[in-house]
């Protein structure tokens, strides 16, 4: 690979250093900021989860049709939403990295992937445990479940591809192409319950109409969504700090940072 000012660490920081818009796209400036923010997001996640679980288990009434089994909704729907949100954000950062050639963007995309994959698995897991008592089956190859499973494989593919390429900048580019191509799967997951006949129920919540569920159920679910958002931000900030240290280990600022820890 030939060396241009943009793809050396020093050149990159010079390239982005003067514009305030790009200021935090330098790993060196973002690293301490992420360290300061992560604990706050973690605390917010814990408080919101406590509030959401309280609403979900103690305030929201028993469902007339599903009994107590429906309470899985307070974790299943938030996990499923996060699996899709995180994918879109991951693809956004990957695309930013391709467009502006900023190092931090690719690191953000890599930091989001494991958390996104985890939520995809958890959506499938909790969905399966919800499907058994309500549909009578753990799994069915219908459009919603299959497209969510494909999302899990997209995350795995992204991580495997990045792990297989030694040069991190090239790994970022290859991963970005895969991540951006896979975005097509997100509207497929979302609209699958409308486009195909499926066992999975339609959306209980939409922008156009009032939610088709009791207010306390809806509030509990939204608070859990917020809790998982805060969790995801905290986890990806923690992971991006690890990635920054791993990738920038030979730089001067990491050496200075290591001395400052002593």
């Amino acid at each position, binding site marked *: 690979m030939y060396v241009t000012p943009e793809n050396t660490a020093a050149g990159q920081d010079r390239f982005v250093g003067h514009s305030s818009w790009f200021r935090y796209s330098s790993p060196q400036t973002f690293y301490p900021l992420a360290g300061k923010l992560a604990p706050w997001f973690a605390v917010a996640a814990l408080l919101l989860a406590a509030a959401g679980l309280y609403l979900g*288990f103690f305030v929201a009434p028993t469902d007339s049709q599903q009994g*107590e089994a429906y309470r899985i909704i307070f974790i299943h729907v938030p996990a499923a939403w996060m699996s899709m949100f995180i994918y879109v954000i991951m693809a956004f950062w990957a695309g930013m990295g391709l467009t502006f050639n900023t190092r931090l963007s690719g690191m953000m995309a890599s930091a989001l992937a494991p*958390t996104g994959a985890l939520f995809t698995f958890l959506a499938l897991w909790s969905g399966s445990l919800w499907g058994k008592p309500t549909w009578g089956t753990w799994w069915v190859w219908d459009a919603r479940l299959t497209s969510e499973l494909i999302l899990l494989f997209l995350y795995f593919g992204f991580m495997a591809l990045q792990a297989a390429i030694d040069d991190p900048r090239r790994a970022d580019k290859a991963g970005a192409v895969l991540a951006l191509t896979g975005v097509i799967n997100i509207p497929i997951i979302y609209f699958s319950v409308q486009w195909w006949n499926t066992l999975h129920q339609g959306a209980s919540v939409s922008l156009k109409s009032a939610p088709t569920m009791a207010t306390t159920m809806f509030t509990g679910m939204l608070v859990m969504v917020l809790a998982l958002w805060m969790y995801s931000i905290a986890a990806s900030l923690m992971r991006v700090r690890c990635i920054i240290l791993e990738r920038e280990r030979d730089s001067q600022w990491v050496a200075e940072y290591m001395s400052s820890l002593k």
Partner: protein
Amino acid sequence: MNWASWSDFFAMGGYALYVWGSYGVVFGLLAMEIVLLILRRRSILQQLDRMRSAARRGLQ
């Protein structure tokens, strides 16, 4: 209040396996992710520290 007693709460109207099986795995795996991230950070810092002392020995 939905529950007459704690055992009523844990029974989840007969759906305990499904409800607690969902919540247990979700919170278990999320906690595990955080623990793994803390361990990952610790191992990088140790590694960088070793690199640094090796470099210092090389200079002497």
